[in-house]
């Protein structure tokens, strides 16, 4: 008799996809990009959002901008084409057809021009040309350009030392309060807002004696409330359009089972988001509707910031456990979550070429947060946490990604579900240390503080950055940007001159590097370059935020937030708990480089600064022997105190220098060392570096992950190195780890991994995520992509389908994997 092995136990956890889900998955329109282009033919922009927004804006000339925004949204929702696909139970889309995506013509006129000349232009090209023309002076970009000069413009848009500014990209990641939709329903919100508006009108018209400074804050608030009301009512009407469509389709439907389903859809869409949710089906549909508006129709927003297992739990419990309302089985619940995943998978964004490159292999970034502790500190992992993980392992889609908050008393069963996802190569859940994140949130950023209870309600705003959630959660949209420290180092070694990419003096003059006498001289120059870049992006971020508050309001998002409603504020303006960060990139390349220079130039004196500068300018050509010396110098990730000290200090002053900046809310941004797929796109932008890397080769893959091929002592040594970083100074810190495919699939896989994770947690490391790939399989997939439509690899803060990656990116991943097997 065969014993039941560890492996059998695990395989039993995950059931295959249902027939319905499989059919829907097979006919999905993936919006993934590759090499800066959309992979699937026929994926393009739809005109309707742009059309109906513009139509409305033309009619509302002279009204307050926030009202115009609300009316424009209403016009889109009242008129856009809607549809329900065969087999669907969860409905709602962001464009008129499943292959299309909406356009955000109001953010950036470059993007509009780019779109007009790209294969992704809507079929109604002439109409869009007119729309783009009309919007040009009203775009955020045009508004921002009034405040900057040519030099600043070049620095900002060169993309050599920093990500393009927000007023060019329109990039954001909101955290809506789903709870207020679930608990109050939009009708409840409307009641609340009407009350506020009424009170304010009374106050304004009857104040006696008149108190100007106070009373004159009211007109702006009244506009905001009016806009919220317009938006909320429009969203209810829009959902009811789906109800009508479903009912109409039910009448026509021959199949009695499908007919019943359509009637159920109609019932749900009539009910939510207008009224409070009754059960799990309501809650899933209400979340999806809300998400579509906040992150796709009102404006573009990335991420899917929410604590999903907490947020849905009361409804899950009512339906699945108590069977009180909308009763269903656990299997049905898993299917519904799978359908939700498929909805997200078909979602996409028309974006600039840069973002199409940065998010290679993905349609956008969607990260859902689960696990962690409850506000009272007890274990917050529940059955729904496991259901969400199971749905991910079942559906095998890259989106949405999951972030698991790992706390001290992590239940073994939840860990097993997480392991099942990782083992299958999904690359997620990405795992965050709950205690570290809570601690960082409680500390705050210099603008307001969070109570520990509120901090415990955190979810990832985007890939890596925790922010509070709930009915009043602080900053509702992202205040962040990315900077490239590899370039800062290059500039420190070239007196501020960018010789490798823009051929311009983009940094301050920090002195002739060949005259540096000590390691500190070099560090000093580096710090000045670093500060220069970070002051500039703080400026551009603040300017964006200032303009967004005037011309890019989100009345619907704001209407869901209790504080915004209370204070008549737009989500953009809400300042109390500002949550600012910068994605600081290439830091490990910089750390390895600094350590190598310290050792070989300033301590052993094997080479001079002059030789180094020459070799770097020559891209190491003709200096191979020297390059190998620098390449073989101590490297981060091997538990080697020499280089680990350099790294630790680098992370420290990255934080201290950054916090010298104060943003418009009075907060000090913290660094978040991580990369998206930027480490590929940056390769050509950053010249040779003293860690032995050549110009064009990739940067490190993010945060505290060792440079490719440099972690020679295995995963435990990597963790020991990482444990030396002071995470309280960072907003977060990404760590990519590789796991051996064979061990993962053996009986010993789970117990070993679980032990490893316990140690990881005990060491107080902020984050970890895993790639599990068999390099033979990857090589084969490169040759025969058709055989591997579902092969998923972890890229950085997200996962991608391997076949969607460029050959260059594929090679990098294969190199990373082979290193693991050799090690």
């Amino acid at each position, binding site marked *: 008799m065969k014993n039941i092995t560890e492996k059998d136990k695990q395989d039993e956890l995950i059931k295959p996809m249902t027939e319905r889900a499989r059919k829907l998955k097979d006919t999905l329109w993936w919006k993934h990009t590759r090499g800066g282009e959309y992979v699937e033919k026929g994926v393009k922009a739809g005109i309707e959002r742009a059309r109906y927004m513009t139509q409305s804006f033309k009619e509302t000339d002279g009204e307050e901008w926030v009202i115009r925004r609300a009316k424009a949204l209403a016009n889109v929702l009242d008129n856009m084409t809607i549809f329900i696909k065969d087999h669907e139970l969860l409905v709602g889309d962001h464009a008129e057809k499943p292959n299309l995506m909406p356009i955000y013509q109001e953010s950036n006129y470059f993007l509009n021009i780019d779109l007009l000349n790209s294969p992704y232009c809507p079929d109604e090209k002439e109409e869009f040309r007119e729309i783009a023309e009309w919007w040009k002076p009203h775009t955020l970009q045009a508004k921002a350009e009034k405040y900057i000069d040519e030099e600043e413009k070049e620095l900002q848009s060169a993309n050599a030392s920093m990500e393009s500014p927000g007023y060019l990209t329109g990039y954001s990641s909101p955290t809506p309060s789903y709870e207020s939709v679930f608990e109050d329903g939009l009708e409840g919100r409307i009641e609340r807002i009407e009350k506020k508006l009424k009170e304010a009108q009374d106050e304004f018209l009857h104040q006696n004696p008149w108190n100007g400074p106070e009373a004159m804050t009211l007109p702006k608030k009244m506009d905001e409330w009016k806009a919220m009301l317009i938006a909320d009512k429009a969203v209810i009407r829009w959902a009811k359009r789906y109800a009508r469509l479903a009912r109409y389709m039910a009448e026509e439907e021959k199949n009695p089972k499908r007919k019943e389903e359509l009637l159920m859809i109609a019932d749900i869409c009539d009910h939510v988001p207008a009224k409070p949710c009754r059960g799990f089906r309501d809650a899933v549909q209400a979340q999806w509707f809300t998400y579509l508006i906040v992150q796709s129709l009102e404006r573009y927003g990335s991420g899917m910031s929410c604590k999903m297992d907490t947020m849905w739990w009361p409804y899950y419990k009512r339906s699945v456990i108590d069977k009180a309302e909308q009763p269903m089985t656990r299997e049905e619940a898993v299917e519904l979550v799978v359908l939700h995943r498929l909805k997200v998978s078909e979602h996409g964004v028309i974006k600039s070429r840069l973002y199409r490159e940065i998010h290679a292999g993905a349609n956008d970034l969607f990260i859902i947060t689960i696990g962690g502790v409850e506000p009272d500190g007890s274990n917050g992992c529940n059955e729904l946490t496991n259901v969400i993980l199971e749905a991910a392992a079942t559906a095998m889609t890259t989106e949405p990604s999951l972030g698991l908050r790992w706390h001290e008393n992590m239940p073994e069963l939840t860990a097993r579900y997480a392991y099942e996802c990782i083992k299958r190569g999904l690359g997620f859940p990405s795992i965050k240390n709950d205690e570290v994140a809570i601690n960082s949130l409680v500390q705050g950023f210099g603008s307001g503080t969070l109570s520990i209870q509120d901090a415990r309600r955190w979810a990832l705003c985007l890939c890596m950055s925790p922010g509070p959630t709930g009915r009043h959660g602080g900053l509702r949209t992202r205040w962040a940007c990315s900077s490239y420290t590899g370039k800062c180092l290059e500039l420190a070694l070239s007196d501020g001159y960018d010789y490798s990419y823009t051929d311009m003096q983009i940094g301050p003059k920090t002195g002739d590097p060949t005259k540096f006498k000590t390691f500190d001289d070099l560090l000093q120059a580096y710090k000045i370059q670093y500060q220069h870049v970070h002051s500039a992006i703080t400026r551009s971020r603040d300017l964006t935020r200032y303009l967004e508050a005037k011309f890019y309001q989100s009345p619907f998002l704001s209407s869901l937030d209790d504080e915004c409603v209370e204070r008549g504020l737009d989500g953009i303006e809400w300042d109390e708990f500002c949550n600012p960060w910068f994605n600081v990139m290439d830091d490990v390349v910089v750390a390895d480089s600094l350590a190598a220079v310290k050792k070989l130039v300033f301590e052993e004196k094997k080479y001079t600064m002059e030789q180094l500068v020459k070799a770097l300018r020559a891209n190491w050509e003709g200096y191979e022997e020297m390059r190998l010396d620098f390449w073989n110098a101590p490297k981060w990730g091997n538990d080697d105190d020499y280089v680990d000290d350099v790294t630790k200090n680098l992370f420290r002053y990255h934080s201290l220098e950054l916090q010298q900046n104060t943003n418009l809310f009075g907060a000090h941004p913290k660094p978040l060392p991580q990369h998206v797929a930027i480490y590929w796109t940056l390769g050509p932008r950053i010249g040779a570096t003293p860690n032995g890397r050549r110009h064009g080769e990739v940067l490190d893959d993010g945060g505290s992950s060792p440079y490719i091929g440099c972690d020679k002592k*295995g995963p*435990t*040594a990597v963790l020991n190195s990482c444990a030396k970083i002071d995470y309280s100074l960072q907003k977060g810190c990404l760590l990519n780890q590789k796991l*051996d495919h064979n061990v993962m699939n*053996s*009986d*010993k896989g789970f*117990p070993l991994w679980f032990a490893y994770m*316990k*140690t990881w947690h005990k060491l107080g490391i902020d984050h970890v995520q895993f790639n599990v790939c068999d390099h033979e399989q990857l090589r084969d997939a490169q040759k025969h992509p058709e055989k591997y439509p579902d092969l998923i690899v972890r890229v950085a803060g997200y996962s991608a389908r391997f076949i969607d990656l460029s050959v260059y990116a594929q090679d990098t991943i294969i190199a990373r994997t082979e290193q693991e097997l050799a090690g």
Partner: protein
Amino acid sequence: MLKIPLITEIQRYCANDGPGIRTVIFFKGCSLNCPWCHNPECKSPKVDIYYHEDKCQHCGRCIENCPQGAISWRSPKKEAILIDKEKCNKCLKCVEGCPFKALEKVGQALAFEQIVDEALRDKPFYETSNGGVTLSGGDPLFFPEFSLKLLKKFKAEMIHTAVETSGYSKWEILKEITKYTDLFLYDLKCMDSIKHKDVIGVDNRLILDNLKRLSALKANIRIRVPVIPRFNDNKENFSLMVDYLQALQNPTIAVDLLPFHNSAEKKYTQLGLNYIYRGEPFMEKEQVEWIENFLEKNNITTTIGGLIGVEK
């Protein structure tokens, strides 16, 4: 006098050389001479040189640098070099002088403290995984006093210890080592003494006797059997093994069958050593299943591929 071993590697995060997450210390030196050895760099107790042909840029500097004139071009095309082992006195001038790191020294004389420091670094991982440190090689029993000292130190640090050995050692030494060893990974290659001596160079009687005594002391023992084509993969050998194991005073934990693989081929090439199994195909799991079945039938717990599957 304490014989100090050279160490070829201290490998962390090992999963197959004992329970949990382990650090394995590879000693250089062994009393046996198995022609299939998977760690040929650990056979000789002396320093060796790896020649990485793929890194070599054929600059000829090593040839110039060698005071013994031991290095020459392998052919007039100057595509690779050749080290004459007879002439070489291991002065390592060639290694130091190679600009492209194509020559590598194998075997480091590490201080006792240095080894201990490296092994203790992963202590937090041993604690959560019930892992520890494994002495391997080569054969740690080739350096008995040093091994004993290390094991004592690890036990004082409350770390689980394992010793991977051929068992070829004086009993007095092994007896002492047993006190500080939580698990033996004990190699049994072949039951036939004559064949053993013919192929491996030493008799197996001492090995078998030691195992008997270890068992009498109730040591925890896993038997490791490298299954080598045409050498020990026959019924007779395993029948004898069953008889022998069943006669032990206390049963061993399990037998781990390690099917032959030739992944060490590259190392033989780099060392410039002859390897009789060049091109020999990997042995598939299916080819050794009959042994597993046979041993299991005789109530001996058996695994294929070592400790993966240890829950059995």
